[in-house]
């Protein structure tokens, strides 16, 4: 049985945030079926994102299994990915997994930030008494924080 290509593609997990699908992460821009297959368009999160190859392989496997013989992956660079594109469902999953979802992406002119950024609420206890412990994390899209109320460290998806 052939399921809808969009549904199959959107359900592909992200290799670096496997609790989210690429649909929930907001990197899946377009899926359209052609006469002999399907064309999937992705916007990478960061310029150097090493996960694209994994995503390509995974998408191809899933769509092939769903009955699409030819799968073509296209990149779209503009507009650049924004963490605002993470869906409400995706945010709830991040929160439940102990990863703070991103706040609204900054808009307007880019400002130099010399002091601490606004605190990110702790995904475990909800306290906003948290500090950033590292500006970068294990993947390009995350930073590390620590909650001063429950004393737990946590990851947060950067707002970009």
């Amino acid at each position: 049985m052939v399921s809808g290509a969009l549904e199959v593609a959107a359900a592909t997990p992200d290799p670096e945030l496997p609790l989210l699908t690429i649909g929930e992460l907001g990197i899946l821009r377009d899926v359209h079926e052609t006469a002999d297959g399907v064309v999937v368009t992705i916007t990478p999160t960061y310029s150097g994102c090493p996960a694209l190859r994994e995503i390509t392989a995974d998408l191809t496997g899933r769509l092939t299994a769903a009955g699409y013989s030819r799968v073509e992956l296209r990149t779209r660079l503009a507009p650049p990915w924004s963490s605002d594109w993470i869906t409400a469902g995706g945010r709830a999953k991040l929160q439940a997994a102990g990863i703070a979802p991103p706040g609204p992406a900054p808009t307007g002119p880019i400002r130099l930030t010399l002091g601490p950024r606004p605190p990110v609420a702790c995904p475990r206890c909800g306290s906003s008494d948290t500090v950033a412990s590292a500006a970068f994390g294990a993947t390009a899209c995350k930073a590390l924080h620590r909650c001063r109320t429950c004393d737990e460290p946590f990851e947060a998806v950067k707002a970009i």
Partner: protein
Amino acid sequence: MVMDDNPYEELADEHGADARWAFGTGFTDPLAGIDTAVPDGVDGAALAAYCLALGDDALVYSHRLQEWITRMPELEEETAIANVALDLLGQARLLLARAGTILGRSEDELAFFRDEPQFRNVRLVERADADFAELVARLLVFSTWRLALFERLCEVPDPVLAAIAAKGVNELAYHRDYAAQWVVRLGDGTELSHARMQAGLETIWPLVDEVFEPHPGDLVPLERGEFDVVLDTVFATAGLARPTAAPLAKVGGRAGRDGVHTEALGYVLAELQSVARAHPEGTW
């Protein structure tokens, strides 16, 4: 499954969904599916040369940052520098690929099979950092300059370069904040950290003027004003003095963008290119 005599043979092959040997191996064309036709009215050769220069800046600097991995003072900073280097490597791949679509060469050919005089990076990115203060001093200068430049490049008529720039802006703004916060922390820290931060800035300062000097290959003009405002804000917050070291002289009127480099670039390329040149048919 038929096994080859040499098990390593399989590692270099293209793999399907279920036969990858490690996460992150294999590369996809960063411009796959993007319309790379040069728009009417755009000089393709000039566009390619400029993308190459910006790609070389990111490629060489990313390599110098990668040299810090396993040598950073703290794990958090190691992660930070690895992330910055990865973002810049991503920018380099996109820019070299963009140049390559016009020149008919692959990003690998451009990265690994050009010699020193064919590289067009500014001399700022070439030297090895002597210490952490020098690292954050150069990262502040590089990211502040490149951010200002990429904001301008979002408006160029080539939609591919404009998109690469727009994507890079967010990354560079984050790198700049990281570097600026460290410059403030060290400058406003102990007597020793202050002295070493000031010394780090003096060391890289001779390489700053070159990046703002107009070059015939530039696609957009860039005023230095915004850069100076940002750096003066950082210096004032950190209690550091604006460096006074004189600019590094050009050689016969030529510098990095003309293919005239410092001795340091040769060392970067020797390491960066050695594997690809030893195995010119290799794939990864």
